[in-house]
């Protein structure tokens, strides 16, 4: 039940885009057609699902104060958390590179679909944001951290596919010229965010 609650929260209540604006850059840049949006969305779920648990292990066995006690009890006071940014981003950048190579080798069809998006993801704020929220919220086990990562990814996919579908439709609408493109996308995202606020406070 705990897992389900974290998963649903990640998708709706604490949606990466509508509640925290994470990953907005690629959200705005790659949402012109539904097809590419779906591709990028799945790539984000994939990478979040891998990097959040890895960063969780890193946080709990290396970086946190007293995390190094498994090496020797005298490290109980060592606090490396000031290194967390650099470690997280290094993990993310190298994981993305690794995932790209593995997918290219073993699943060429998937690579064809996700290929161009994977490098983009290393600098997608939602991935680092996922790691930092995981650190801030102190999930009790790796399972919960993974579910949180996957839930946030699904929420991100939902948001980008929805806005891409609206943008495909809106191409034929009569929008004031200065508002075309970026402007109207911002306002639409705001309205969608208001709709998503209806989920606030839901407990499962």
């Amino acid at each position, binding site marked *: 039940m705990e897992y389900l609650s974290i998963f649903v929260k990640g998708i709706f209540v604490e949606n990466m885009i509508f509640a925290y604006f994470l990953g907005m*850059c690629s959200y705005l840049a790659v949402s012109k057609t539904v097809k590419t949006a779906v591709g990028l969305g799945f790539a984000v779920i994939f990478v979040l699902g891998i990097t959040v648990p890895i960063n969780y292990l890193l946080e709990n066995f290396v970086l946190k104060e007293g995390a190094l006690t498994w090496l020797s009890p005298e490290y109980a006071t060592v606090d490396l958390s*000031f290194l*967390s*940014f650099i470690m997280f981003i290094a993990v993310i950048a190298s994981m993305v590179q690794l995932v790209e190579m593995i997918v290219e080798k073993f699943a060429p069809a998937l690579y064809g679909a996700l290929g161009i998006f994977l490098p983009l993801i290393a*600098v997608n704020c939602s991935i*680092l944001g996922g790691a930092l929220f995981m650190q801030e919220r102190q999930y009790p086990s790796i399972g919960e951290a993974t579910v949180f990562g996957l839930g946030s990814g699904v929420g991100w996919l939902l948001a980008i596919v929805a806005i891409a579908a609206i943008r495909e439709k809106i191409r034929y609408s009569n929008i004031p010229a200065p508002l*075309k493109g970026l402007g109207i*996308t911002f306002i639409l995202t705001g309205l969608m965010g208001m709709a998503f606020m209806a989920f606030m406070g839901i407990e499962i």
Partner: protein
Amino acid sequence: MSTETTTAVEPKRESLFSKKNRKLLTDPLDDSNPITVQVLGICSALAITVQVQQAVIMSLAVLFVMIGGNVIVSLMRGIIPDRIRIIVQLVVIASLVIIVDEVLKAYSPDISEKLSVFVGLIITNCIIMGRLEAFALANKPGPSMLDAVGNAMGYAWILLAVALVREVFGSGAISFPGVGQVKFLPESWFMASGGFYENNNLMILPPMALITVGVIIWIQRSRNTSLIEEN
């Protein structure tokens, strides 16, 4: 600087404030604004604009990281291997962000609390990566620094504009770093003490940040019609 030799030789030395270099400073304020035109660095711009004070601190942090990152990468541009340049850039940025984060934690813990994960997210702020890729890797430290200042300013004025609108209408006050929130309406005007004025709480919620930026883009593009998109 031994790294200088690998890049193209410029025909003649130009002064730091030549016309071309001044354009580096002024262009990002309007014609190539990082937020409203290049669409970079939106995440942080929206999330921390509830109060002017946070926006000021965030802008200063981004200014520092951008100048540092641009100058360092520009100095190293001859020795960074092309294949691993993204990781090198990320490490440079991440180190600068750690400095900012530690300074903030030491000197203003309450602001650091409010900015929470968004200081860390400066690392993936696309403006910084974008400028490193597009400018610092191909230019000398001097112009790179000007480019950094220009883009950070372009980012800062949008941030401050959004924060001002949201705070004035959402909290009926303006806050400055070091001073705290200053209410400019008399207390007796508010509904709570029997007056007629009520803050618009919607302004504080996330969706209004997006709509405010949308409206700023609308105003900017109706004045500067060359920026209008086809569809």
